[in-house]
């Protein structure tokens, strides 16, 4: 039985308002949920941040150690996914609310991976961890003991929302959104500012990509901008249309998960794929076309 939606009026304008919850809604739902219909998941860049304190009752899913295959550069398979969720008390009909650090990059990334497996009800906490903390809401170091449940073995369904390198090559000429910083887009930087450790051999962007840094979709407090503000950026300024087939990419697919969420769930685009290989694959691939220079 899914939890009721957050009826916060500012969400009503979004295409899929049921994909977002406010901190107020979450606080009230944590108080009222007595049947385990809701599981809150923290997904951070920093693997130890959850341990320093988290929303009471929240469980942790680490993007790297829980969602990535330990050997192949890919996501976990159906068995491992079922294990990760089941041991956290998440069933197929559980409402999952994900939040995290860095304006919800890794929360959006986890939500996107949950979507690869078609988890029906997965939502983001608008504003993420930082907003919850800034509002002085309770945090704890106490790790909940989840009663394990059976999560079904469901096949990962990549094609609708995930692009591989060959898909991107076939997509050239159609809309691509590069959500990295301007310096990474132009080719001046081989990495994200402050993240020099994941290099690429070539700098620049995929030919024809538009530069729309992910942060433009976020307000100062980490919440998403209003639908009107988002439309001004992606529709008016960039000329994209909700019926377009769009591929978004960044460095390893985390920042572009944030933009994938914006385009898909807030603006109602129907055919957005996240290229998770992103620049760490493209910028190291032999023979693929690269464009340099500012937008």
């Amino acid at each position: 039985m899914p939890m009721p939606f957050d009826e916060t009026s500012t969400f009503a304008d979004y295409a899929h308002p049921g994909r977002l919850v406010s901190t107020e809604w979450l606080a009230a739902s944590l108080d009222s949920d007595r049947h385990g219909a809701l599981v809150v998941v923290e997904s951070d860049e920093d693997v130890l941040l959850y341990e320093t304190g988290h929303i009471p009752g929240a469980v942790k899913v680490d993007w790297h150690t829980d969602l990535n295959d330990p050997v192949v550069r890919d996501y976990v398979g159906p068995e491992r996914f079922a294990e990760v969720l089941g041991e956290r008390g998440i069933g197929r009909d559980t409402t999952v609310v994900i939040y995290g650090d860095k304006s919800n990059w890794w929360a959006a990334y986890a939500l996107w991976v949950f979507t690869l497996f078609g988890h029906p009800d997965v939502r983001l906490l608008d504003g993420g961890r930082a907003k919850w903390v800034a509002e002085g809401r309770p945090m704890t170091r106490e790790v909940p003991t989840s009663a394990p449940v059976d999560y079904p073995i469901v096949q990962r369904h990549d094609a609708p929302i995930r692009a591989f390198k060959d898909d991107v090559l076939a997509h050239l000429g159609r809309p691509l959104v590069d959500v990295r910083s301007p310096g990474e887009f132009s080719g001046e930087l081989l990495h994200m500012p402050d993240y020099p450790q994941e290099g690429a051999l070539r700098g620049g962007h995929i030919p024809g990509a538009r530069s729309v840094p992910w942060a433009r979709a976020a307000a100062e407090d980490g919440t998403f901008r209003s639908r009107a503000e988002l439309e001004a950026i992606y529709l008016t300024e960039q000329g994209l249309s909700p019926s377009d087939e769009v591929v978004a990419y960044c460095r390893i697919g985390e920042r572009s998960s944030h933009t994938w969420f914006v385009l898909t769930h807030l603006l109602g685009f129907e055919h957005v794929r996240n290229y998770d290989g992103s620049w760490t694959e493209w910028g190291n691939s032999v023979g693929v076309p690269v464009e340099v220079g500012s937008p």
Partner: protein
Amino acid sequence: MSVLDAGAALPEGLAAIAQDFTSLPTRERLTLLLEFSDELPELPERYQGHPELLEQVEECQSPVFLAVEVEGADGSVAAADRQVRLFFQAPAESPTTRGFAGILHAGLDGLTVGEVLAVPDDAPFRFGLKEAVSPLRLRGMVAMLARIKRRTRAGAAGQLGGG
């Protein structure tokens, strides 16, 4: 030969920490890392508000800074026997990085120049953290150690101001 095969021993303090980590199940290693994060000493007053005295570890994903002091640089003690003091600054929102700094502080602060320079470069891989935090994230600790050794070498040669 993989870096993991390198044979040089860790200094006593760091070896004890490595023993503590590797004797724990993977999941509990994070709890121990959190203790090192919590216990990382604050910067002493003389460094607070003086970012120019600190070196940023640019390989880390979070803003972490360090300073290395080599005592007795007036020539009264042989270079290799001078004592090394380490100072770190890393934000509370980056507990993994703080934990790495905490391990290095607990294991290396107060050793001699010779002992610090003898620490094997693969030391960060000997705490059993590869499975707990992923190898990608361990690169931050590798970079911290490299910068500490470089600064120690420079400090022992009298190339750092204020020491």
